[in-house]
């Protein structure tokens, strides 16, 4: 049986926010999250009882993120450095935080594949449906993203990859 929408927000809200932060960046993530959940709440009554809620939310988040990325590209403020931000996502300077920072420098497709698979928990088949293209391509994009993260990460911190 489908739960009240409050339960959906409580159970999946944090996961969706992590996905949004990875795909559109920290500053625009709140907007992406808010638009995702208002849109999901509108559509919720029509969602089939047996639907995979996580996949459904990540798909909506993906569409909202694309709109935001489009606007970001139009505005096109060059970012040379990682800006300072509140430490609500972890201890500043911690290893976790650093990996996180590198995600946003990945190409769009890789960033999406990494976020939807490793943060959203979506199987590659579903990611392929969301992004378009084949399952193999989605898997490759995520693998390339991870490979590139590992390289950057290891380059920045020699202990990194072995921690």
């Amino acid at each position, binding site marked *: 049986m489908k739960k009240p929408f*409050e339960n959906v927000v409580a159970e999946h*809200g*944090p996961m969706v926010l992590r996905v949004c932060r990875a795909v559109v960046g920290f500053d625009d993530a709140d907007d992406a999250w808010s638009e995702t*959940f208002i849109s999901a709440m509108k559509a919720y009554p029509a969602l089939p009882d047996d639907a995979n809620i996580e996949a459904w939310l990540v798909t909506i988040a993906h569409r909202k993120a694309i709109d935001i990325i489009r606007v970001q590209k139009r505005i096109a403020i060059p970012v040379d450095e990682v800006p300072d931000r509140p430490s609500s996502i972890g201890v500043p300077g911690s290893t976790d935080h650093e990996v996180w920072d590198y995600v946003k420098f990945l190409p769009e497709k890789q960033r999406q594949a990494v976020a939807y698979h490793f943060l959203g928990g979506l199987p590659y088949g579903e990611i392929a449906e969301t992004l378009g293209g084949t399952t193999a391509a989605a898997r490759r994009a995520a693998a390339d993203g991870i490979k590139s993260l590992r390289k950057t990460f290891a380059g920045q911190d020699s202990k990194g990859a072995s921690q």
Partner: protein
Amino acid sequence: MNTDTDGELEISDLLANTALPSAETMERLHRRLEESAQQAGILDIAYTTMDTPVGTLLLAATEKGLVRVAYENEDLDKVLDTLGTKISRRILKAPKRLDTAAFEIDEYFERKRKTFDLTLDLSLSSGFRQLVQKHLPQIGYGMTESYKQVAAIVGNPKAVRAVGSACATNPLPIVVPCHRVLRTDGTLGGYIGGLAAKTALLNMEAAV
């Protein structure tokens, strides 16, 4: 195992464990969702909980009005599930819509209020039950009626048992005062919030 796989596992573990949003962030986003859902007209049911001398109460309102008051012993998750099935699953914990109701209930328990001035949504009951529930607010503060008297007043003297079930299924206890209905011999009968709560309400009202 090749090194590629090793690297992937470690990085993905780091990603999976990284950056869980803080509780404050989630609360802030939740408040923003409450507001925009209200503005968009899709907040079908808003609810909140409040502490009272008879325990935690859940208050829920549609856009039409207060639709449900529930006692903790009814299992509040189950109450919300039922609201979802019967009315809409577009439910959020959004206390703002319940401000007036919560305020009046507080006043009632502080003995500063004898009647409630709230818009009610009676859509959870129908027919004879709703007829009975509409009569109940006419039983004054500190007064009681018997199930039999209520049956006679609503025009169906034989329906004593049906009055009992109308009281037992009252979706708006306290605000719709089913606690003021007793057996003919003066014993309590039943109560949705438990007999201790019924006694507490009657004693409080009688003490004024």
